[in-house]
């Protein structure tokens, strides 16, 4: 049941040093990603979910940087000693279960050689807006083969063939012709498929998907989610899916991390998060979404009062305190709730669950 750990994030803090002050975008986040599993990170805008993902790859934009914490990457066997010998790119994900090498990604130099080897090879990422994350002046083929040539010892023709194979795999019709097209000639769904093909070109151990379906329509979203599930079965990579859509979480996740204002509110397996949420934020978030089939019978939606606080003006104590219905004066505004273990891998950051 439990697969080996792939990424372990410990007390990660990524801050942005701006003229107006320091934005603590990620402020003490812990969670783990297991091999072959899907972890969903969910939260509203500004909760630090994207910055967490970018921290893993060390691609946080200036003036942000990781100030504290560890990101331990347990590198699967099949990927150790890369750079020298090429990895076989097709469908051998299942054998990489034992780990030997542990790398602290947070300690690597963001411009160094080691992290550049990991990006695209061990860990790859797909972004929200496929139009702005693909190069408009390079052909689709060029962009996919670049990663293949960089990380494997395949040469031009072989790389092209591999790219065609990948494009076919992600469901692009007539992939031979598509190699020569530019991103603007493709529809939004097709572009996102090209992004996925590119991300999977070196058979990564972890695929980070940052809101991959936010910019596309529901029917395209269903296609992309289905594709990601299929590819996970086939390639065996772990997926870290970042989204604000609880529906997507329910469809895709094995484990869920709920974030609020740079901190983890709660984490656990998907069933208990949806059916037995512990943190008041998760509880009210679940109540505030319109549900198909149920909402037409409702007179009103429950909403969370107030709004996400300004990042320069964070509340003291619990971040959710000012909007919480269970606010305990004198405690919630004084103590930043520590992680409280509830068993079965569940963890909640809320003083309500503190043992006396």
């Amino acid at each position, binding site marked *: 049941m439990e697969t080996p750990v792939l990424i372990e994030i410990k007390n990660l803090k990524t801050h942005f040093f701006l003229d107006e002050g320091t934005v603590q975008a990620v402020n003490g986040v812990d969670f783990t990603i297991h091999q072959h599993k899907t972890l969903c990170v969910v939260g*509203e805008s500004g909760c630090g979910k994207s910055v967490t993902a970018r921290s893993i790859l060390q691609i946080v934009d200036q003036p942000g940087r990781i100030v504290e914490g560890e990101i331990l990457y347990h590198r699967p066997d099949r990927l150790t000693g890369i750079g020298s010998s090429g990895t076989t790119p097709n469908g051998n994900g299942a054998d990489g279960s034992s780990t030997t090498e542990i790398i602290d990604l947070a300690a690597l130099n963001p411009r160094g050689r080691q992290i550049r080897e990991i990006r695209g090879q061990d860990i790859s990422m797909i972004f929200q807006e496929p139009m702005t994350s693909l190069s408009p002046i390079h052909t689709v083929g060029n962009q996919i083969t670049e990663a293949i040539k960089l990380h494997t010892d395949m040469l031009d023709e072989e790389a092209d063939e591999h790219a065609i194979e990948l494009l076919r795999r992600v469901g692009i019709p007539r992939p031979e012709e598509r190699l020569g097209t530019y991103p603007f000639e493709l529809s939004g769904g097709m572009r996102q498929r090209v992004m996925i093909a590119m991300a999977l070109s070196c058979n990564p151990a972890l695929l980070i998907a940052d809101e991959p379906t936010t910019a596309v329509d529901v*029917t395209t979203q*269903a296609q992309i989610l289905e594709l990601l599930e299929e590819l996970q079965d086939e390639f065996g990579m772990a997926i870290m899916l970042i989204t*604000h859509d609880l529906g997507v979480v329910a*469809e895709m996740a094995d484990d869920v991390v709920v974030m609020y204002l740079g901190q983890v509110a709660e984490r656990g397996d*998907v069933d208990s998060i949806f059916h037995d949420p512990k943190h008041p934020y998760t509880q009210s978030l679940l109540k505030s979404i319109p549900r*198909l089939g149920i909402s037409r019978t409702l007179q009103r939606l429950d909403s969370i009062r107030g709004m996400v606080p300004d990042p320069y003006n964070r509340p003291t104590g619990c971040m959710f305190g000012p909007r919480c219905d269970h606010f305990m004066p004198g405690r919630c505004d004084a103590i930043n709730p520590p992680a409280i273990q509830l068993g079965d891998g569940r963890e909640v950051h809320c003083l309500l669950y503190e043992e006396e």
Partner: protein
Amino acid sequence: MSAQQTNGSQQSTSANGSAAADNVLLDVKNLQKWFPITAGFFRRTVGHVKAVDDISFHVLQGETVGLVGESGCGKTTAGRCILRAYDLTGGQVLFQDHDGKMVDLGPLTNNEMKPYRQQVRMIFQDPFNSLNPRMPVIDIVGDPLRINSVASGQELEDRVASLLARVGLRPEYMRRYPHAFSGGERQRIGIARALSLDPRLVVADEAVSALDVSVRAQILNLIKDLQEEFNLTYLFVSHDLSVIEYICDRVVVMYVGKIVEVAETEELFEQPFHPYTEALLSAVPNPDPRMRQQKARIVLEGDVADPANPPSGCYFHPRCRYVQDQCSHETPELREVAPGHFAACHFAEELTLTGVTASGELG
């Protein structure tokens, strides 16, 4: 088309149900909006994007009608045609004047439109781009009042203050600029601006799509409350079916510029008659992980058809699961398949399509 225009009123009366009732506020008949495609040095017109192609529907007084579809289906264009932000290519937009007469907004000049622009207002999608960053809130909300000489001076200030209070903003903030507000607050400013002239019809174009989950619920509740308070009628344009279900009384589903289905919300969600509606409903992710196994999600093949070069026959046929020979060469008419329920599908009665039952399960 010409046949329909000759007996236009008869046709669309029967084509969308109860247009004969006196409380019809807006009656859209055979609305068309084509955008020209130009090419070459002389910008010759080489074709048209049929963004909205011959749609008819009506909105009753006090009702919320949802216009739903994927991007490129023409829902926004339809909304803008009703506001006359675009000139129509064809068809009529009949709006009920204060004295109960139906006025066609289509051929009116800008000057003649002026009184109706007070009555039909719009809430925009993007709360960041739809507010002028150089104007304080009092001007943003108050300008419609000033321009239409409804109020000025102290009275204007009082009206703005009460509007702001009504949408849940503090009136003391009226001298601030939009940058000082969060997304949800800006959307409230946009709503206050739309309501400043006591409109009768509000076109809300994706009004909550850009907002976060927790704020979205607040704004949806506000939109509902304001409807009761001011007796508003909404045309709610959205791609989000769960939002549509929550807020709308009746739903119009569009696909590539045409209406494919019209029905009461409950009817449409429980028993869709068009395969596109079925696929759309099934594509919405269900926020319950226990439903994952039970759900046979229908994944549509391919992309939305190109409105400049739509397929023959039924526009949906290349993606339809139930496609038959007839579909590729005969265009289905929108027809009544059950009382008050219209669908444009040759086989609407024969197909048994899956909707969403009240318990949230797919039945």
